[in-house]
């Protein structure tokens, strides 16, 4: 059986950064990615990142993916395994892998799970009609494959994803009928909201979708208002003509492998749902397992990249690769704290605090 010092699962922003950090310390690393490309969700992010100078501010996600991917391919000591899915983690530190046409095993002294998150579905009438999409699927169709998802979209969710995807739809020549948001206020950055509003797209807060209309596919949506207790108000129904209902209603961390491995999991709504308990080094309650990126709590890609670096450095240090490691870790921790400072980081700070309250996790 092949063995490696560190296995990184997932080649999105967190996994790529973890791989580079660990390999940079001299550790042997296997990077395992289900998809055929590196970059994870970054490859569909055609917008420029902002907010943080040191985390590629002003650069488009797809360019960041290319840069990190290039660096991983050029770095020595990385065993890159694309189109490979991790099926299980066993107590003898063995990962079971599904390669395109065979099963393989890999022994790893440490594992870093950077498995990301999945899109949240929403409960409403006829929610299985063709034309109901997740925002990630819309971005994949439009930004990766150049396919228009439809002609007129109703966007559900005014967080950053809903706002940014709405703007990208407009740029692609697709109409956006409205953005509907259940909360009383817009969740995303106001600079994004202002852009779509200037383009004439109404943002309806305190509203949600009641049902999709259409026999074979979506022809319209019925929306209605929510009261202060988030209960729908009968009689406020309105019909919105559209052929796509796009759900941008949040993400849930993907922790299956860590549940399997016996990591202590906690339910923290601020972090998106169930996440593994972890310390400042991103180490879970299982001493051989680290976590990074959305799998540790849903946050932005800029934070995922720094978390990846921390996990990669800390995992390498635990195997004796400790050259300048404290200095590098200190720098990364300061960057992460800076990203989470201010009002936009309030939710994540509260989530992490509530995660740590459960003791040391061991």
């Amino acid at each position, binding site marked *: 059986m092949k063995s490696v010092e560190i296995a990184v699962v997932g080649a999105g922003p967190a996994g790529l950064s973890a791989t580079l950090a660990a390999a940079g310390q001299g550790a042997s690393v296997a990077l395992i990615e289900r998809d055929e490309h590196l970059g994870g969700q970054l490859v569909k992010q055609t917008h420029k990142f902002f907010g943080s100078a040191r985390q590629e501010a002003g650069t488009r996600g797809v360019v960041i993916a290319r840069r990190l991917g290039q660096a991983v391919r050029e770095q020595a000591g990385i065993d890159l395994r694309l189109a490979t899915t991790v099926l299980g983690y066993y107590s003898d530190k063995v990962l079971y892998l599904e390669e395109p046409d065979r099963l*393989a095993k890999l022994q790893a002294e440490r594992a870093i799970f950077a498995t990301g998150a999945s899109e949240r*579905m929403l*409960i*409403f*009438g006829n929610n*299985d009609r063709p034309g109901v999409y997740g925002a990630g699927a819309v971005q994949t169709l439009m930004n990766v494959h150049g396919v228009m998802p439809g002609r007129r979209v109703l966007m559900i969710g005014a967080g950053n994803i809903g706002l940014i995807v709405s703007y990208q739809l407009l740029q692609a020549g697709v109409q956006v009928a409205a953005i509907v948001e259940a909360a009383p206020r817009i969740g995303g950055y106001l600079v994004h909201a202002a852009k779509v509003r200037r383009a004439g797209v109404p943002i309806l807060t305190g509203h949600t979708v009641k049902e999709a209309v259409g026999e074979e596919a979506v022809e319209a949506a019925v929306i209605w208002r929510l009261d202060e207790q988030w209960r729908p108000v009968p009689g406020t129904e309105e019909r919105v003509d559209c052929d796509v209902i796009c759900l941008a209603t949040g993400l849930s961390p*993907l922790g299956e492998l860590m549940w*399997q491995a016996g990591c202590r999991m906690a339910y923290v709504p601020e972090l998106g749902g169930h996440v593994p308990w972890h310390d400042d080094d991103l180490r879970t309650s299982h001493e051989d397992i680290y976590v990074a990126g959305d799998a540790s709590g849903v946050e932005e890609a800029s934070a995922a990249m720094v978390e990846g670096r921390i996990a990669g450095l800390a995992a390498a240090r635990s195997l004796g690769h400790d050259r300048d490691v404290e200095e590098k870790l200190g720098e990364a921790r300061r960057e992460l704290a800076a990203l989470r400072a201010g009002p936009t980081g309030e939710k994540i700070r509260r989530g992490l605090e509530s995660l740590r309250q459960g003791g040391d996790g061991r």
Partner: protein
Amino acid sequence: MGPEGSKPKTVICRCEDVTVEEIRKLIEKGYQTPDEIKRLSRCGMGQCQGRTCRNLVLQEIGAATGREGKDIPMSTFRPPTKPVKLGLYARARAEHEGGDDR
């Protein structure tokens, strides 16, 4: 609208075609953990292995019982994380018996 005259259908588990009404009925009967609901309805046992419906089921249990997500016990997670063709395992076994333990 759904088929002629019927109420719109609200799907909670797309893989196994389970509706929210079915889940609510089970909760009403006293099946108030994801595990019980999974065993009775197959909700979460399909292609996506619950990645879509898991949180919706938690949300429904929470709404009906007033319990918070952290107080609802989750089902057990076992390998494999996704559906796999049996042929892969058969081939792995054949390779293993042939002494090729890669």
